[in-house]
């Protein structure tokens, strides 16, 4: 839901509360419509053996739509979040993205090179980049945390964790 950055209206200090509200309400409305759509496909009435599979979800979807429509109207008519309240200031949003984007890269890293190596790298890079630590310290903490996790899961609990599509740990026999 990072698309909110693009939709500020005049709120120079950041994303306005109003636009964030509208985006989320529209998103929920779409989601509700999606639920209704699939429920209708499944059948939302009364079948041979009782209620059909879409019977319950249909009403759930309907209530999502009603709830988000009311919220949307409340926002647009200004009964809620009056004035120019700010959802998130640009400076704060930058901080949030500084955590979120590396986290997304980290998850991609897990997919490719596995939890242990990706975690060590992520912690080290985070510390150096955002914490302004030296590389030595970053690497020590990163590798340390990964090593402890490795010992705990692979050796102690015998629960193997994901090692990635290109498993670098296969070099040491795991």
């Amino acid at each position, binding site marked *: *839901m*990072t698309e*909110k950055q693009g939709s500020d209206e005049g709120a120079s200090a950041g994303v306005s*509360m109003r636009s*964030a*509200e509208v985006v*989320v309400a529209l998103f*929920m409305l779409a*989601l*509700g419509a*999606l*639920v209704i759509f*699939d*429920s209708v496909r*499944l059948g939302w009435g009364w079948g041979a053996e009782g*209620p*059909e*599979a*879409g*019977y*319950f*979800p249909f009403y*759930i*979807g309907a209530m*999502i739509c*009603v*709830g988000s429509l009311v*919220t949307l109207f*409340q926002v647009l008519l200004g009964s*809620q979040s009056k004035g120019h309240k700010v*959802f998130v200031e640009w400076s*704060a*949003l930058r901080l*949030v993205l*500084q*955590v*979120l984007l590396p*986290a*997304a890269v*980290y*998850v991609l890293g*897990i997919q490719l090179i596995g*939890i242990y190596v990706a*975690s060590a790298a*992520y*912690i080290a890079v*985070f*510390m150096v980049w*955002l*914490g*302004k*630590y030296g590389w030595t310290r970053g690497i020590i*903490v990163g590798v340390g*945390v990964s090593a402890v*996790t490795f010992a705990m*899961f692979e050796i102690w*609990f015998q*629960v193997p*964790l*994901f090692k990635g599509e290109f498993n670098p740990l296969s070099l040491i026999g795991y």
Partner: protein
Amino acid sequence: MEEINALFHGFSVALTPFNLLLMFIGVTLGVLIGVLPGLGGANGIAILLPLTFTMPPTSAVIMLSCIYWGALFGGAITSILFNIPGEPWSVATTFDGYPMAQQGKAGEALTTAFTSSFVGAFFAIVMITFLAPLVAKFALQFGPPEFFAVFFLTFCSFIGMGKEPPFKILVAMMLGFALAAVGIDTVTGQLRLIFGWHELMRGFDFLIAVIGLFGIGEILLSMEEGLSFSGRTAKINTRIVIETWKKLPKYWMTSLRSCIIGCWMGITPGGATPASFMSYGIAKRMSPDGAKFGTGMAEGVIAPETAAHAAGTAALLPMLSLGIPGSPTAAVLLGGLLIWGLQPGPLLFVEQKDFVWGLIASMYLGNIAGLIIVLTCVPLFAAILRVPFSIIAPVIVVICAIGAYTVHNAMLDIWLMLLFGVMGYAFKKLSYPLAPLVLALVLGDQAEGAFRQAMLMSQGDMRIFFSNWLVGSIMGLGLLMLVWPVMGKLMTQLRKSAA
């Protein structure tokens, strides 16, 4: 008397050296979780849940519930020393706790908070001991319509009691139900809401949602505040503890009132957070020193802490006796019970006596262990908070990712966790509540099952929900809860126009 016997039997189950060890480990982990930003009772337990699968269920649930007690205690430490609520229910504790710490009375504030927490929990446990078996016995005669009515009441009270806009509560809750419906429909075997994406067949696991919503979401929120911890130092020694304990009895009235508010809010799923605010507000109004609240009054720490702990503990009553959790953390515990093959609900008290009473006995012991640990180890836990955020944050993200992966050993879950994290962040900021979302996700299938069975019984006639006094009164209570905020508004308007 039957309960007392059962309870003593429970103590014999819980009091093995292994279980005692787990209790101390659990409480320590719990306090740690409560102190760290981004880790709380709900997602902390969700992350640790897979590690307990190999333990006997009684030991596992003892450890997990002790983590919960620890987390409840831990929230107070950050509130008082750092003015940062470690948990949502300790927000109200900052109002008077932090000013006390600023005046150099941190030790006193912490002792007050911990003792109040203990009192609140103890009150709630005694209530569970005597009330839960009765509720369970009563619920044995429930059929599908009654169960659906109880679900209905649960969710209506969220809307009625919540402080968020009611339609946002509705949307959040229904989103939970919709997510719960994803996957194979257990009755017809049809695939629902997966839109051809077969990896979604398993559905959304609420543990992943909890880890993302509360864990990653919280990290994003704390990041935004550009966290710089600048805390007060705390000294707790025996002298301070005893001095504080001497002062506490004169606030017995506030304590008792907060216990009752907490228990009520915990059973009806208002939860610990509203309970703490409500209790603080009422204490402020009722106390002779009400005007001085916010400047560091001990009473302002007692009220929210007692109520939060009482509510947090009381939330286990409906979880155990009806299978309906009163809080997200109770929901995670319920998820654990299901994985261990124990179906929470009225039959649990008949079929799994050892387990139930072992757990209830462990609540007494776990809270005593908790009190001892927090009173002795505060400086240690406070030191952890001085570890810079730029180290803590990535480590917590790593812990969350591992926790999400271990639930089903599925890579997709880590991506979903991230997605839920962003959602948690946006929802929190726009005051869409997360608790009903999580509870609906957990209870969705059961609620739908009960609804469909009831519909089958009546051949689609909605009047079945009002067909006898029992189901009718539960439904009626639910409807009352639903219109509660409207009635409250009407009353104030009437009073205004009368004045």
